């Protein structure tokens, strides 16, 4: 039995934790790529930051000057990690996750509550001088990423697979799937723009960065080996049914969670129909979508259905 209010908080808890993890990982990837290219090609280094900012436009930040002895990059990293005014920062997302967790404390285990609070407190406890040290900032980002994965592990291993779990995980899947779409929408125009003039090593590095920003590099290699072709990467991140961060996997997960949710007969079936349609498109329209000049309109369509489902799920509490 689940209160409608609690369902909504669990959904948002799932979303915010996933958002924190995405921002943290993406930041580490952008930093690593930009370091690799700062001395070789400033444009590429800046493009990596641009992709990060385009993926999370709510940050409101400008592309850092990668040539300014790291100061601007430090500022950007700091904002993405600790600035609670930045709505997509790790600290901001973790704090919002804590806010939601506090209202549903009785549904969570001690481990989840403990690691969630610990992760946030450790992040905000760093001293001012640590935030001005480029090396230390990297360490902080890595430590924080570890904390977030620990929280997610505690959830995975201690929470009941009940209806509340469905809401929590559908929030996570919603955030993750949208993130993958945002990454592709931000990256593909850049990659297409440079496709002709890129050396193979640079091109490979750029595609590796795309895949790492959605934690899919190793999974991709298991399927395609060391080859990085745009069509392969796109097909993998959109249609692959085994990798956990593809659009296809995300949508199918949401369909599954929606099936586990009770409903008064109005909203959940509508959301299930919406996601069912998206799942069917991903299963049966792969070749057609890949044959088009661009995959982006197809992704726009899927994204629209995700947004509709999100609105139904978050409107659920109001509808009773």
């Amino acid at each position, binding site marked *: *039995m689940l209160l*409608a209010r609690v369902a909504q908080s669990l959904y948002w808890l799932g979303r915010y934790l996933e958002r924190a993890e995405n921002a943290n990982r993406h930041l580490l990837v952008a930093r690593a790529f930009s370091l690799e290219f700062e001395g070789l090609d400033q444009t590429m280094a800046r493009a990596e930051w641009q992709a990060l900012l385009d993926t999370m436009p709510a940050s409101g930040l400008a592309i850092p000057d990668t040539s300014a002895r790291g100061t601007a990059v430090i500022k950007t990293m700091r904002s993405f990690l600790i600035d609670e005014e930045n709505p997509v920062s790790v600290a901001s997302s973790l704090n919002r996750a804590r806010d939601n967790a506090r209202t549903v*404390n*009785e549904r969570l285990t001690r481990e989840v*509550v403990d*690691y969630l609070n610990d992760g946030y407190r450790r992040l905000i406890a760093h001293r001012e001088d640590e935030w001005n040290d480029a090396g230390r900032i990297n360490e902080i980002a890595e430590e924080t990423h570890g904390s977030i994965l620990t929280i997610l592990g505690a959830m995975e291993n201690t929470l009941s697979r009940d*209806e509340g779990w469905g809401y929590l995980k559908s929030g996570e899947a919603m955030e993750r799937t949208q993130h993958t779409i945002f990454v592709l929408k931000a990256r593909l125009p850049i990659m297409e723009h440079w496709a002709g003039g890129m050396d193979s090593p640079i091109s490979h590095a750029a595609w590796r960065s795309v895949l790492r920003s959605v934690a899919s590099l190793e999974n991709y290699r298991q399927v395609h080996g060391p080859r990085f072709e745009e069509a392969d990467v796109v097909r993998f991140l959109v249609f692959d049914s085994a990798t956990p961060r593809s659009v296809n996997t995300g949508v199918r997960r949401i369909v599954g969670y929606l099936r586990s949710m009770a*409903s008064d007969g109005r909203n959940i079936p509508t959301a299930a129909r919406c996601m069912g349609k998206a799942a069917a498109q991903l299963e049966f329209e792969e070749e057609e979508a890949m044959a088009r000049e661009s995959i982006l309109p197809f992704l726009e369509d899927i994204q629209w259905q995700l947004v509709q489902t999100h609105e139904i799920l978050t409107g659920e509490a109001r509808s009773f």
Partner: protein
Amino acid sequence: MEWATRLSGYDEAFDRDGFPREHYQTVVESLGALDNGQIKRRGQLQNISLRNQGITFNVYGADGGEERIFPFDFVPRVVPAHEWQIIERGLIQRVTALNLFLRDLYTEQKVLKDGLIPWDLILSRPEYVRQLMGVLPPHKVFTHVTGTDLVRDADGTYRVLEDNCRCPSGVSYVIENRNILQRTFPELFANYPVRPVRDYPDMLLEALEFVSPRKLRGGLIVVLSPGRANSAYFEHSFLAREMGVLLVEGSDLVVDGNHVFVRTTGGRRQVDVIYRRIDDEFLDPLVFRRDSVLGVPGLMNAYREGNVALANAPGAGVADDKAVYPYMPDVIRYYLGEEPILAQVSTYIGARPIDLKYILDNLDKLVVKQTDGAGGYGMLMGPFATKAEIEEYRKGVEAEPGRYIAQPLVEISAHPTYLEGKFVARRVDLRPYVVYGDRIKVLPGGLTRVALKDGSYVVNSSQGGGSKDTWVLEAPRPETNGDEEVNGDLDVNGGQD
């Protein structure tokens, strides 16, 4: 490490000659063997645990509803079995009498007709709910949970300072303090038969199931909280989680046809028992405060009809009113025909003219409290107040004497407490918890609150108080035949050599 000087009055841990009392000897030795560095590290671990588990309380009036850790002092309070037996019997006696008193007040009112307590004193209490006259809660239990504050006077006698019959809070700290102490000072437990406190949520759940109007297995029980802005929200969510029941707010409940329902994602479900952590006046805007958004419209009708049990029962607060407190020894004698087992503190009632004169003449010597006050707010500590403060307070007493009571300053007992690298003596009280279901049970433990400020008598968390783990020791087992016991052990362990 040095153990600090005693305060005036009784010292819980040391005798008059400065030697540890028998039941404190091992605690003093074990803690004395630690150096400041070790203690500091363990203290940091305690604070991290408290914060990470969200074991905090909100301070009303503080900036942005500030959330603070309830300071925890690791030196445990040890209550030997023989002392606890008296406390336990005294509390069972007192809670029995309190419930008989409440039943009488809302039905026959014999206690008033017989002149034991003045009519106007009861009828003028805001906690007395006239609308509930003739309405009895399921099984006639009014106080499913009672928190009775005890202090120890200069002679070491336990005295009841006040009863809390509405929504007594703090039991979550009792359990968490034990958890934290076991994590950070495990060696302290090695030589003590400390009675466990972790089964409190089960005790409470059993009591709540017992009063369920529908005798279905697993009748729906919820904890009703005002929400996360409430100072005790941590405890509400803690108890809901530990009991495995829903934590709801007023807006999650709806009354239809004099039945209470909770809105779930699967539709409405009928609620049988509400463990409410909302004061009476906010429970139902149709009966009490019209501006309340915390309660549930129509809830009292459902309660009157017997379709839902409320714990504690509405109207129970009149029994713990500070103006009723002085009558409690007589109340016990009246209903039970017994002498009170637990003493209490002599009290002057502002509503009684002769007492009022004494209060006004001795404001500088008395502790004066508002009858509806709590948390140490609105209190005058006469011996420590300035002349200006006393004169200001006098105006209030003169204007509304019925709102005040006064007591002599009790030299409440002191207990070693670790502060700033030293063990110092600080004053303490004790709040044990009594649960009333099919019978009355007392949790073997309680919340020991400690006044952390030097010389302070006020232990409330809102006034800078902290808390301690309270160890109630198991009574020594009676002597048995040694051979039989050895045989029993062999069976349990599957046959040792």
